[in-house]
C-alpha cells in the first residue's frame, strides 16, 4: 500500500517543482481565486519586510497572518517552496492514514450491525466491501495532491496549505482517538483561521463514539468527557494565543487577524459571496448583513450535530464544505480540502441526483474565472457583474453538490435500515420522499 502512495507523492512533487520553475508560477500567484488577502504569499513577504523595517506588521492593512506564521517563515523564507511542498505531502499522508483508520472503523461498525441484524435483509449491495474500501485512502491522497486547486494553491504559496495541513492532522488525531492532540490541532486550526471552531462538534461526537459514551444529555460521562475535551481545547487555544503575544509583545494581531476575518474590510474579489455583496451594500445595513453572512458558517453546526450524531465524519465533511463556501475570504485551496473527502463517500455515488451537471458547473466555472477576470480587469470589455455572476454560479454549484451528497447519505441510511426494495402497502414499487 505504501508504494502507490510514494508514487503519488513523487508525481505531486514533480508537478509542483516543474510549475515553480515555469513562468506560470507568477501568473498563478497573482490570481485572486488562489490567493486571498488573508493568505497571499506576497503579503507574508510584506509582513516580513515590515518586521525588518522595524514596523509592526499589524500596523498596516496588508498583513493578516498569525504571529506563528511570521516566525515560521522568518526562519524558512529561503525554503518557502520546499515548505509548501512538504506541507502538501504531509496533509495528504495525514489524510491517507486518517481514512485508512476510519475505514477500519466503518468496516467494524458495519460488521457489528450486520451481526446484530440492524440492517434490512436485501441491502447486501449497499454494504461496503473491503475490496471497495481498499483504495479509498490512496484515492483521498491522490485527490488532494493532484487536485489542480491544491497544485495551484501550492504554487502560489498560499498559506491556506498550512491551514489545510493543520486541519488534516486534527482529523488524523481525532480518528486515532487522541483527544489531547485533537484538541491541540483544533486550537491551532482555530487560531489560524477562526472558522475551524465549528469542527469542534464533529470531533467531539467522533471521540465520544470511539469511547463508547452514549450521547445523552442526562448521562454524566457524556458531560464529563465534553468538559474534558472543551477544557483541553480552550487551554491549548489560550496557550497558543499567549505564545503569539509573547512573540510580538502586543495584542495587535487579534483585531488584525480575527477582526479582519469577521468584519470583511478588504473587498478584493475572490470566489466567495462576500466581496461584491459588501461592495454594493448600503452603509447602514452593512453591520447587520456582516452578522447575517458570518453566522452561516456557525449556524448549521448544531442542527447537523443532531441529525448526524451517529456519523461524525460525514458531519465533518459537510462542515468543512460549509466553511469553504461561507468563509469571508475563500480560496480554491479550501475547496480542495473537502474535495479530498469525496472518494470516502464514493459508495453514495448511486444515490447522487445531479453529480454530472454539478461537476460540469464547477469545472466550467473554474475555467471561466480567469477569462472573465481578464475581460473585466485587463480588457475592460466586461464589468464586475460578469465575474460576480461566475462566483454566484460556482457557489450554487458547491452548495448543490454538498446538499446532494447529504441527501444521498441520508437516503442510503434509510435504505440500510428499511431495505432496498421498498414496497407500498398495496405491494407496488414505492417512491421515497422527504417529508
Amino acid at each position, binding site marked *: 500500500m505504501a508504494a502507490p502512495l510514494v508514487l503519488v507523492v513523487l508525481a505531486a512533487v514533480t508537478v509542483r517543482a516543474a510549475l515553480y520553475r515555469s513562468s506560470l508560477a507568477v501568473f498563478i500567484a497573482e490570481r*485572486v481565486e488562489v490567493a486571498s488577502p488573508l493568505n497571499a504569499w506576497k503579503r507574508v513577504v510584506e509582513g516580513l519586510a515590515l518586521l525588518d*523595517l522595524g514596523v509592526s506588521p499589524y500596523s498596516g492593512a496588508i498583513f493578516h497572518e498569525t504571529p506563528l506564521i511570521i516566525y515560521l517563515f522568518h526562519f524558512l523564507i529561503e525554503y518557502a517552496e520546499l515548505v509548501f511542498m512538504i506541507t502538501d505531502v504531509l496533509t495528504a499522508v495525514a489524510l491517507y492514514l486518517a481514512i485508512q483508520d476510519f475505514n477500519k472503523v466503518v468496516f467494524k461498525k458495519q460488521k457489528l450491525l450486520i451481526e446484530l441484524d440492524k440492517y434490512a435483509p436485501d441491502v447486501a449491495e449497499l454494504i461496503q466491501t473491503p475490496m471497495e474500501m481498499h483504495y479509498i485512502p490512496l484515492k483521498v491522497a491522490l485527490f488532494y495532491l493532484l487536485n489542480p486547486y491544491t497544485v495551484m494553491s501550492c504554487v502560489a504559496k498560499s498559506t491556506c496549505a498550512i491551514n489545510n495541513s493543520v486541519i488534516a492532522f486534527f482529523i488524523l488525531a481525532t480518528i486515532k482517538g487522541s483527544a489531547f492532540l485533537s484538541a491541540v490541532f483544533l486550537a491551532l486550526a482555530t487560531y489560524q483561521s477562526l472558522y475551524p471552531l465549528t469542527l469542534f462538534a464533529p470531533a467531539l461526537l467522533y471521540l465520544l463514539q470511539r469511547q463508547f459514551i452514549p450521547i445523552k444529555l442526562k448521562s454524566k460521562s457524556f458531560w464529563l468527557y465534553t468538559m474534558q475535551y472543551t477544557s483541553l481545547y480552550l487551554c491549548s487555544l489560550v496557550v497558543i494565543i499567549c505564545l503569539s503575544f509573547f512573540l510580538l509583545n502586543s495584542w495587535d494581531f487579534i483585531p488584525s487577524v480575527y477582526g479582519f476575518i469577521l468584519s470583511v474590510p478588504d473587498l478584493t474579489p475572490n470566489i466567495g459571496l462576500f466581496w461584491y455583496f459588501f461592495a454594493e451594500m448600503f452603509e447602514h445595513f452593512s453591520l447587520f448583513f456582516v452578522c447575517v453572512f458570518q453566522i452561516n458558517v456557525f449556524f448549521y453546526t448544531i442542527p447537523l450535530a*443532531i441529525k448526524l450524531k451517529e456519523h461524525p465524519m460525514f458531519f465533518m465533511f459537510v462542515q468543512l464544505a460549509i466553511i469553504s*463556501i461561507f468563509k469571508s475570504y475563500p480560496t480554491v485551496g479550501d475547496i480542495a480540502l473537502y474535495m479530498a473527502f469525496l472518494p470516502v463517500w464514493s459508495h453514495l455515488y448511486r444515490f447522487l441526483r445531479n453529480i454530472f451537471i454539478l461537476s460540469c458547473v464547477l469545472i466550467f466555472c473554474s475555467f471561466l474565472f480567469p477569462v472573465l477576470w481578464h475581460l473585466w480587469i485587463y480588457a475592460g470589455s466586461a464589468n464586475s457583474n460578469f465575474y460576480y455572476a461566475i462566483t454566484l454560479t460556482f457557489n450554487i454549484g458547491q*452548495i448543490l453538490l454538498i446538499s446532494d451528497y447529504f441527501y444521498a447519505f441520508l437516503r442510503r441510511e434509510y435504505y440500510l435500515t428499511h431495505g432496498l426494495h421498498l414496497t407500498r402497502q398495496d405491494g407496488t414499487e414505492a417512491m421515497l420522499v422527504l*417529508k
Partner: protein
Amino acid sequence: MAPPEAAPLAGRRKRKRRGAARGGAGGGMAAALLLLLLLLAAGPGPGRADAGQERRDALREELLLSPLPTGDVAATFQFRTRWDADLQRGSVSHYRLFPKALGRLVAALGVRELHLALTQGFWRTRYWGQPPLQAPAGAELWVWFQPTVTDVDKAWKELSNILSGIFCASLNFIDSTNTVIPTASFKPLGLANGTDHHLLRYAVLPREVVCTENLTPWKKLLPCGSKAGLAVLLKAERLFHSSYHSQAVHIRPICRDASCLAMSWELRQTLTVVFDFFSSGQGKKDWSLFKMFSRTLTDTCPLASQSKVYVDISPKTKEKELLEVSPPPTSVHEAVVQGDKKTYAVYDLLSPSLFNTSRSLNVQLKWKRPQDSSEMPIPTLHAQRYVAGYGLQTGEICTLIYNTHPYRAFPVILLETVPWYLRLYVHTLTIITKGKENKPSYIHYQPAQDRRRPHLLEMLIQLPANSVTKITIQFERALLKWTEYPPDPNHGFYVGSSVLSALVPSVTAMKDMDVEQSPLFTSLFPSSDGSSYFVRLYTEPLLVNLPTPDFSMPYNVICLTCTVVAVCYGSFYNLLTRTFHVEEPSRGGLAKRLANVIRKFRGVPPL
C-alpha cells in the same frame, strides 16, 4: 518706518472728540450722548494701543517677474506682514495690518507655523527651472503646533475646518485618511524650540480645484485689499488664464532682531502665476505688465513700507545682452539665488521719481533677437513620476530623480503619501542608480490602514553626481464600497505629489545676506551656509484608475446573493428537518374529494 496714515488717523479721532463736545453744548442732546457713550466705550482702548503699536507692524510687498527658459513668464507676488507682537499671549486684541481672522486662529489653536498653498497646474521644474516657491497641485496644508497643544489631532481638524471657511476651499476634506506626520521632510521654517514631529501635520488634497472664490478671500487678507499697490494686478480673469497658478499663506514666528531675544510673527502671502506667452502671444516672447494682467501699476499701497518690482534680467550667456526692459529701472540688484548668479532690474514704487515721469508703471521686456531654445539650462535637481503597469489589478509607481550636478553628490529626502486604496508593498521597493542598487540611509515607512490612514514613505537617498535614480514600488488596487467612489469613478483617483527636499550644492558661492534687507523671494527658506541652498520640489500628482463595481445594481446584488444563501438554507433545512418516507397512495387533495362527492351524487364510481 511709520506708515503715513497713522497721523491722519489720530487727527481724525481728535476732531471727533472735539465735535462731540461741541454737540453737547449746542443741542441734539440724545445724539451727542450716544456718541459720547460710544466714544467712552471704544475710544480709549485703541487709542492707547495705537501709541505702542504704530511702529510695530510693517508690510513689504514685491513682485518678481522672471522670464522662463521656455518663453513663459513667471510672476511671483509676495506680501509680507511682520508684527512685533506675541500672538500666543492672548493679550492682543487690536489688529492693524495683520489679518484678524488669521491672528485669532493662531492664538486660539496654538499654531506655531502654518503653510497653506492652493495651486492649479503643475510647475515644470525641468523646463522652467527651480521656482522660488513651489507647491503641489491642489491644496497643501502643513502646520506645526505649539508644544502646549494637548490634542493635536483635534486642533488640526478644527484648523482645517476654519481655514476651509476662510479660504472657501474644501480643506474640510482633510481627515485621517489624507493626513500624515512626516518625520524628516518638513522642518519648521521659523523659530522653533523643539522639532518633535508629533506636533506636525501634513495633508494634500490633489483633487482641489483652485478658482476665483479662493482668490477673493486671499486678497481680502491684504492690508490694502486689491485697491492699491501691487495687488491691483491681481485680477482673476487674467490670473486663472495661465498655465500655473499658486497662492499661498505662510505664518511663522521669526526673530525680532539679530539678537533674537524676542519673537515677531510673519505672515507671507505669496502668489505665483505663469503666463504662457509663447503659444498665446503669436510666438513672441515679449511681454509687459499690461499684457499679462491687463492693468498697470498706478499708485502704491499707503500702508506698505516697501513696494518693489524685480525683473530678472540675468544674461544667459555672459557676452550678449539679449533683452531690454523699459522704463529704465531705479536700480539693479545682483544676488546669488538658488546657486545661480542673477541680475534684477528693480523698480521701487515708493521712490518719488518713478511716478513723476508717467502716471503709471508698465514694465516691458523686449528680446533683442530671437533666442535659440537649445541652450536651456537644466536645474541641478529635478524629478519625474508616473504610474507603470496595465490593467486594474496591480501597478507600479516610478519616480525618477535627476542630479545634473557635474561633480557633487547630495542627499535628498523623498516623502511619498499614497492613499490606502492603493496597497503599497514595501518589499517591492527598489532604488536603482546607474544600474546599481542604492540603499537609502534612512527609511521611515508607515503602512496604511483601510479607511483610516494613508501610506507614508520617507527616505533619505544619496544622489551621486550626474545620475538618474529610479525608485519603483508596486501597489495593488483595492475595490472600494460603491459609496466610497467619487461621482465620476472612472476619472480615476489622485495620488498627491511626492515631496523632495534637498540641500543642493551651489555652483556659485553665496554670500550671507541680511534677511531683512534682501528681497523677499530669497528669504523664506533658511540657508544653511554659502555652499548649498535648500530646494523643495513636488513631483506630478498621479491619476490612478481603480476597478469599479456596477453602481446601478445594489438591489440586484443584494437579492441575488441572498438567493444563493437562501438556496443553501432551504436545501439544508429540508434535509435536516424532514425524514424519508415511503410515498403512500394518498386520500387525495381537496379537489379529488370534492370530485368524489359529486361523483357519488351522480352515481358514478369514485376516482
